[in-house]
């Protein structure tokens, strides 16, 4: 009896600290969701499509990529391929978290898989690595995930409701590239990432003539290849310098 109480209590504690740890990140999430709601309508999606995309896709970058490609009348296959490419990073998150989550029952893994976004990963991975471990750590990810999910749905709805009141001269469509600038700048902390960004950007301009918006996929591959190769080169270079010493 007492044992059961203790269990419930620590599960609840983990859940609440997940909610709390996720809270500061909402300062970034809520405006992002509002922008998505506004932009979704602006590119011609219906309010329902815009709203349900936030729960079906549930990923800021992929949703905005979706709207951007929808706006430029991109064929289905290219749209699906590009949105999936943006999501490939989740494989990395999952692989890092699987160490802690693999043993859980299927329904837990389904729920946590659905909730595993950039922000929830960042917050809960910190908890998994920095504080003493417990058997209820997955409740932390549940908490940070639910906090994010809730704020994302509400802010999307706010965007959808406020969108039509904003005049076109405000050029809110430009919020998409601005959002992406905010997303990638913190990750440009080493040269391979900078090279990767520059080469993908240049290739995107060079290959504009390709049909079906294929320039996007070609440019992404250019960036990935340049980034990967240059980090191999820089690793070898650092090794050589260290060997000399």
């Amino acid at each position, binding site marked *: 009896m007492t044992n059961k109480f203790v269990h419930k209590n620590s599960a609840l504690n983990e859940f609440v600290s997940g909610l709390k740890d996720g809270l500061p990140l909402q300062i*970034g999430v809520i*405006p*992002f969701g509002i922008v998505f709601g506004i932009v979704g309508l602006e590119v011609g999606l219906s309010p329902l*499509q815009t709203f*349900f*995309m936030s729960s*079906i*896709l*549930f990923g800021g*970058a992929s949703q905005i990529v*979706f709207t*951007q490609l929808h706006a430029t009348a991109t064929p*289905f296959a290219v*749209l*699906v391929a590009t*949105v999936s*490419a*943006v*999501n490939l*990073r*989740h*494989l990395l998150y*999952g*692989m890092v*978290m*699987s160490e802690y*989550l693999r043993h*859980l029952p299927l329904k837990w*893994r*389904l729920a946590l*898989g*659905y909730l*595993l976004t950039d922000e929830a990963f960042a917050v809960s991975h910190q908890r998994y690595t920095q504080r003493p471990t417990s058997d209820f750590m997955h409740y932390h990810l549940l908490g940070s995930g639910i906090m994010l999910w809730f704020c994302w749905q509400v802010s999307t709805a706010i965007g959808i409701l406020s969108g039509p009141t904003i005049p076109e*001269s405000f*050029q809110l469509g*430009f*919020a998409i*590239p*601005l*959002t*992406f*600038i*905010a*997303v*990638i*700048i913190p*990750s440009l902390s080493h040269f391979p990432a900078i090279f*990767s*960004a*520059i080469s993908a*950007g240049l290739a*995107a*301009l060079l290959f*504009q003539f390709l049909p079906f918006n294929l320039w996007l996929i070609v440019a*992404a591959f*250019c*960036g990935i290849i340049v*980034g*990967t190769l240059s*980090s191999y080169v820089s690793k070898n270079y650092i090794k050589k310098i260290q060997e000399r010493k």
Partner: protein
Amino acid sequence: MSVWIAIIFTGFLTFGTRFLPLSPLMPEKLPDWLQLAMKFVPVSVLSAIIIPAIFISEDTGYIVIQDNLRIVAAIVAIFVAYFSRSTAITILSGLSVIWILTFLE
């Protein structure tokens, strides 16, 4: 209708990339080069979207450099993003630059 199909399809794939590593189907470790390459996916895809959205005119489809307010706004936004690390402030600063410059024109 096709929009709904695209939403559901991409939603399914998005869930797949998140759930797959938590399922027994996925090997616990991918080759090093593949893991390294995947780290460059978001930066590459997003840069490939950012750059044309700044430089290519929506009306003509050509690259515009002269009198392109978006270039100024993007440069300001890059600095603001670097120092503030905030999505909201970055979006607001970039849009304000566009609004102010359009107003002054």
